[in-house]
C-alpha cells in the first residue's frame, strides 16, 4: 500500500506496529514532491531539513515506546502566507520576497507541529490571496493535478493541488471569499472553512481581517476532521477569535445523519452555475433525502458587500506600497487594490452593517434545516489563461467570478465543508455543505455520509512522471 492510499489513522497504526517509520514517510514524500512538483508548480519552498528533523522526533518517541500525538508522521504543506520559522512569508507576492525570515511559526503551524505533523514546505497562491485561479505572474500558475492544462483554483491553489496529487495527506489554506472552497472544488478534494473566528489566524499574512478564515484540505473526511481538531485552540493574539469551546469532530463522524436535516440552497445558487453543478447538487440532494429548497434572497447583495469589504480593507493595507513600489505589484491586482483604497467610507460601513443584518436573516433558515447544499463553483476548472466563462448565458470574468457562490457564505461567516464530485466527463466539481455557526460537526458528518456511500470521489490524480 502506498502512502497516499493510507488514511491518517492507518499511518498511525503502521507507525505503532513498526511497519513504517516517520523517517521513511518523510523521505518518500520529499522524493515524490521532487519528481512531481515541476509539473504542478505547487511548492514554492520545500522544507526538507525541517521535515526530516520532525520525523526523527516522531521516531524517537516510537523507539522509546511513548504515546504518539494525533498527526504523528503525517506529511502536510501550508499556503505560503503562514509564517514558518526561518522562511520568508511570501503571501504569493514578489513584494515580500526580500523580507526577513519569520522568527516563529504561525499559531496553526505550531498546533500541527505539536500534533506530530511533518511540514513538507510552503505552497503557491494568488498574490495577496486576491484571486480565484492561482495564476501568479511572479511564481507561475499552479496546475490542476487532474488536468495539467487547467487552473487549480485559488487563492489556495497550491494547497489543493498538493493534496489532490496525493503528495501530502493534508494542507492548510485560507478563505476570505472562497479561497479554500474554490480550489477544493476544482481539484476534487475535501475542504473545511470553519466558522469565522473559530480558528486562530495569528502568524498568517492578513488580507481582509473582517473576513479571513483559515482551514484544512484533505482527501478523506476523517483526515479533514482530525486536522481540524488539531488546529483548534485559544489564542489571545487573534482578536477576532470567537470565545467558543473546542469541539472534537473526529469521534462524531460515525453518527451519520442521525437527527440532521438537509435542504438545497436555491435561487442565486442554482441560477449562477452550469448543468454539471446542478446535476451534482441533485445527486447529493437525492442521496440525503433533501427535498426542500430554501432561499437566501440577499445572496447577490451579500456578494457585493463582501467584494466592497475585501477591496476596501485589502486596498488600505497595501496603500503605502501602492504609493512607493507600484512596479513590484502583481499586475492582475494592482489597480483593483488601488480602486479599493479609494472606496467611500459610506459604502464600506453599509457593507459591514448589512453583514450583521444578513446574518440574522440567514439564521432563520436553520430553523428548517441543519445543512444546506449549494455548488462551490459555477463550473469545473477552466483552462489556464482563459479569461471568461459563460454562466447563465452571460460571459463572466473567471478570475473574479469563480468564487461568486462562495462569497455570500463566507461573508456570513458560516462553516462549510466542500465535498468533491465528478461531472459526467470526469472533471472534479465540489459542493458546499453549509451549517449554522459553530456547527462544523454537522457539515463534516454529512460529508462523511456522502463519502461512505460513494457519492464523493477524492481519489488522487495520476500524474505521469
Amino acid at each position, binding site marked *: 500500500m502506498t502512502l497516499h492510499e493510507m488514511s491518517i489513522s492507518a499511518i498511525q497504526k503502521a507507525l505503532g506496529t513498526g511497519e513504517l517509520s516517520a523517517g521513511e514517510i518523510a523521505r518518500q514524500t520529499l522524493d515524490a514532491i521532487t519528481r512531481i512538483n515541476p509539473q504542478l508548480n505547487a511548492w514554492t519552498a520545500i522544507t526538507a531539513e525541517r521535515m526530516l528533523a520532525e520525523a526523527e522526533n516522531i521516531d524517537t518517541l516510537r523507539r522509546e515506546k511513548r504515546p504518539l500525538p494525533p498527526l504523528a508522521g503525517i506529511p502536510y504543506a501550508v499556503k505560503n502566507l503562514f509564517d514558518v520559522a526561518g522562511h520568508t512569508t511570501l503571501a504569493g507576492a514578489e513584494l515580500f520576497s526580500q523580507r526577513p525570515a519569520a522568527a516563529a511559526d504561525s499559531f496553526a503551524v505550531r498546533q500541527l507541529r505539536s500534533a506530530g505533523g511533518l511540514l513538507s514546505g510552503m505552497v503557491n497562491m494568488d498574490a495577496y490571496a486576491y484571486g480565484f485561479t492561482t495564476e501568479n505572474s511572479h511564481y507561475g500558475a499552479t496546475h490542476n493535478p487532474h488536468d495539467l492544462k487547467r487552473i487549480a483554483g485559488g487563492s489556495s491553489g497550491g494547497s489543493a493541488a498538493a493534496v489532490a496529487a496525493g503528495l501530502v495527506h493534508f494542507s492548510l489554506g485560507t478563505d476570505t471569499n472562497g479561497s479554500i472552497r474554490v480550489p477544493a472544488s476544482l481539484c476534487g478534494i475535501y475542504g473545511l472553512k470553519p*466558522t*469565522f*473566528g473559530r480558528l486562530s489566524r495569528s502568524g498568517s499574512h492578513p488580507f481582509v481581517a*473582517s473576513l479571513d478564515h483559515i482551514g484544512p484540505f484533505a482527501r478523506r473526511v476523517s483526515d479533514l476532521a482530525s486536522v481540524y481538531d488539531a488546529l483548534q485552540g485559544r489564542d489571545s493574539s487573534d482578536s*477576532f*477569535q*470567537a*470565545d*467558543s*469551546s473546542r469541539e472534537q469532530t473526529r469521534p462524531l463522524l460515525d453518527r451519520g445523519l442521525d437527527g440532521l436535516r438537509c435542504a438545497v440552497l436555491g435561487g442565486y445558487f442554482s441560477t449562477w452555475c452550469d448543468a454539471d453543478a446542478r446535476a451534482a447538487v441533485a445527486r447529493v440532494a437525492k442521496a440525503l433525502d433533501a427535498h426542500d429548497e430554501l432561499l437566501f434572497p440577499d445572496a*447577490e*447583495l451579500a*456578494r*457585493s*458587500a463582501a*467584494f*466592497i469589504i475585501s*477591496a476596501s480593507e485589502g486596498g488600505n493595507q497595501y*496603500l503605502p506600497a*501602492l*504609493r512607493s513600489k*507600484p512596479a513590484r505589484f502583481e499586475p492582475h491586482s*494592482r*489597480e*483593483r487594490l*488601488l*480602486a*479599493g*483604497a*479609494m*472606496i467611500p467610507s*459610506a*459604502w464600506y*460601513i*453599509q*457593507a*459591514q*452593517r*448589512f*453583514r*450583521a*443584518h444578513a*446574518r440574522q436573516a440567514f439564521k432563520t433558515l436553520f430553523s428548517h434545516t441543519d445543512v444546506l447544499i449549494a455548488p462551490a463553483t459555477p463550473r469545473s476548472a477552466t483552462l489556464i489563461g482563459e479569461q471568461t466563462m459563460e454562466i447563465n448565458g452571460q460571459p463572466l470574468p473567471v478570475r473574479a467570478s469563480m468564487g461568486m457562490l462562495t462569497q455570500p457564505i463566507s461573508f456570513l*461567516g458560516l462553516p462549510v465543508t466542500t465535498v468533491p464530485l465528478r461531472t459526467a466527463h470526469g472533471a472534479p466539481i465540489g459542493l458546499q455543505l453549509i451549517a449554522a*455557526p*459553530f456547527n462544523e460537526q454537522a457539515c463534516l458528518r454529512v460529508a462523511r455520509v456522502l463519502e461512505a456511500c460513494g457519492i464523493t470521489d477524492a481519489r488522487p490524480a495520476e500524474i505521469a512522471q
Partner: protein
Amino acid sequence: MNTTPPDWNAYLAQMESVLGVELDDARRAELQLQFSRIASMAAPLMALPLDDRQEIAGVYKA
C-alpha cells in the same frame, strides 16, 4: 435627494491627490474600470434600507 450621476473620473482624480498616488494614463484607465465595477455593486447595497439601530457585524458568540 440628488440623482445626478456621479463623475467618478473627477472623484478618482481627487483621490489620487488625497492619497498621494502617481498614475500614468494606462493605470488611470484601469483604475477607472476597476472602480466602476465596485460602484455598480455599491449602488444596490446603498439603496437597501437598514434599521437605524443596525450595528456593524462582530464575531459570532458561541
